[in-house]
């Protein structure tokens, strides 16, 4: 197939919880057999509700957690078991942007040190002055001012802190950046700025992005391909446009129909899911979604669905998606179309604003400071 930069095969992460004296140990199957393929230069999104294991998956791909089972390949090289020097080299090529910009920066280090640290680690040949200049360049790249280097994280707003986090991630010239909900902790107005920044940087610096998110608007705006996760497994994956236009898995259908309708009174098909997400410590048998699926049949509780090719590059893990699609020919189209109208206006506005700001970094940082 095409050029893959990151590939996960049957990745599993099980956590042992509880235990201790006279207590039963439970196994939480946070990630349970996930296979994904990320192509060089694309933006790959992983979406799902809270607790579906997407953050765990991100940490597995990043090798911040050891997988229980399965293989991870980066650039054709198996990275599941590497350590020491190899792992450090991997850290140079693969970087991480955290969800919460308030807790992910060491409060006792100045911005200059925070951003300079990856440079010091991965490019030790640079002198102190060169490093300081490189930090200044990185701060400009993310829309901050070089004189911010002497300040401390608490002096910045959430959006600015996330820019610091991005500058830190870019400092080692990575080829792949994984963002674990990089904008979900930010104000909506700042979200768009940061999303656009990531988007611009991706094309400018020739990187690949993997974005974990639960905000479908963000994903639709910036990703090329998307994987939908439910209870530690991928239920549907494929090109973003195709999935938003014609979702096939009932869970994707429900997820997309939950997007708020910006136009009052527009006709829509809404699929409300009943019940809570089952615990990953005791996932349902058969298809994991059968307990909440409005289309579930008897054998869904016993037969485990495999991801199978639906159309072009889309894959779906549902036994009956063809029949569901036949009965609901327009499902998903309405909310997607309605969303794009409002979202596009919103994003167009911010894109224009961001463009203006990146031309003049001073205004960008001032705008961020007011939030």
């Amino acid at each position, binding site marked *: 197939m095409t050029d893959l930069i990151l590939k996960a095969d049957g990745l599993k992460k099980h956590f042992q919880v509880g235990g201790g004296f006279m207590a039963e140990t439970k196994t939480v199957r946070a990630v349970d057999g996930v296979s994904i393929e990320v192509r060089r230069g694309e933006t790959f999104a992983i979406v799902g509700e809270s607790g579906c294991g997407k953050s765990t998956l991100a940490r597995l791909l990043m090798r911040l957690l050891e997988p229980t089972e399965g293989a991870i390949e980066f650039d054709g090289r198996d990275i599941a078991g590497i350590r020491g020097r190899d792992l450090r080299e991997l850290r140079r090529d693969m970087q*991480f942007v955290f969800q919460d910009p308030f807790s992910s920066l060491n*409060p006792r280090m100045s911005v200059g040190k925070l951003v300079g640290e990856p440079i010091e680690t991965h490019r030790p040949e640079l002198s102190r002055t060169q490093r300081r200049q490189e930090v200044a360049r990185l701060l400009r790249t993310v829309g901050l001012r070089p004189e911010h280097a*002497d300040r401390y994280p608490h002096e910045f707003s959430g959006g600015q802190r996330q820019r610091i986090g991005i500058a830190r991630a870019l400092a080692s010239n990575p080829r792949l950046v994984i963002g674990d909900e990089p904008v979900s902790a930010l104000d909506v107005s700042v979200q768009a700025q940061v999303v656009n920044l990531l988007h611009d*940087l991706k094309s400018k610096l020739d990187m690949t992005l993997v974005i974990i998110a639960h905000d479908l608007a963000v994903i639709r705006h910036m990703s090329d391909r998307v994987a939908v996760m439910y209870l530690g497994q991928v239920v549907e994956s494929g090109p973003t446009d195709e999935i938003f236009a014609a979702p096939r898995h009932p869970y994707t259908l429900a997820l997309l129909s939950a997007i708020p309708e910006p136009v009052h009174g527009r006709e829509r098909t809404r699929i409300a899911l009943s019940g809570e997400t089952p615990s990953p410590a005791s996932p349902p048998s058969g298809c994991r979604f059968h307990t909440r699926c409005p289309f579930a049949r008897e054998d869904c509780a016993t037969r485990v669905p495999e991801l199978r090719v639906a159309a072009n590059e889309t894959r779906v893990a549902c036994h009956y998606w063809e029949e569901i699609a036949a009965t609901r020919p327009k499902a998903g189209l309405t909310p997607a179309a309605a969303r794009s109208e409002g979202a596009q206006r919103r994003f167009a506005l911010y894109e224009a604003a961001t463009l203006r700001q990146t031309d003049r970094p001073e205004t960008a940082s001032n705008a961020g400071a007011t939030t």
Partner: protein
Amino acid sequence: MMAQPATPATLKPQLMTDPVLQKRPENRVWKKFRSHRSAMLGGLLVGLFVLMAVFAPILPIPDPTATDWGAVRQAPSAAHWLGTDEIGRDVLSRLVWGAQASLLAGVISVGIAVAFGVPMGILAGYFGGWTDGIISRCTEALLAVPFLILAIALAAFLGPSLTNAMIAIGLSATPVFVRLTRGQVISVKAEDFVEGAHAIGLSTPKILSRYIFPNILPPVLVQATLTIATAIIAEASLSFLGLGQQPPAPSWGSMLNTAKNFLSQAPWMAMWPGIAIFLVVLGFNLLGDGLRDALDPREH
């Protein structure tokens, strides 16, 4: 420009002469410490006692061990500003000379406790598992014995001298620091920014020194200043039992211990060393507070 690798050649020339980049950052910690009033007061108190201890030999005061049987237990007067003790020794002189023993006992024993306790606590908290098991069980065993009893036992084992008393007090105070550090490390370890440090690819020693240590320091500093007080008093108790400062050399603790027999006849004998201990302990506490605030960039 952004996609290019950043070698100095590709940097814009004005960046090289940018005044912002050339400016040396001022010393933030010292600047903040200076503007912290109570910390400066603490520093002044401690500094005063340190000067007193250092310059004891050249101050115009009588020999602290010279007895005068004609002037036993005399109230403060022009000849003896702070009075005399039960064998006619000058209390002021003994107070000044005693500052040496007491300050040394306080600072060095706490230094020993911090030097052993903090690294062990970091090891236990950061690595967990067997390391933690062994260190924590030993700590708990030591904590089960009362502080002073442990110090007395150790001092008796090492033999009576001021140095051994300091070692004994230091080792007895170590478990508290191990426990405190371990707990702090466990909570700091779970912070996102430590995971961020792993993601950057930092080595473990760097994570420990840049991420863990600075963030566990404040409570350790406060505990250390409080323990200095405890250590000065522990030295007094050991001196009383003949395990600390050897008579007739003075220490505040031994002065207090003798004075308690003459509380009604000669209260000044107890008052001055008591005030001295109070002021030194207050000084160290204020100093520790100020240092903690100055080291935290979030405090203004």
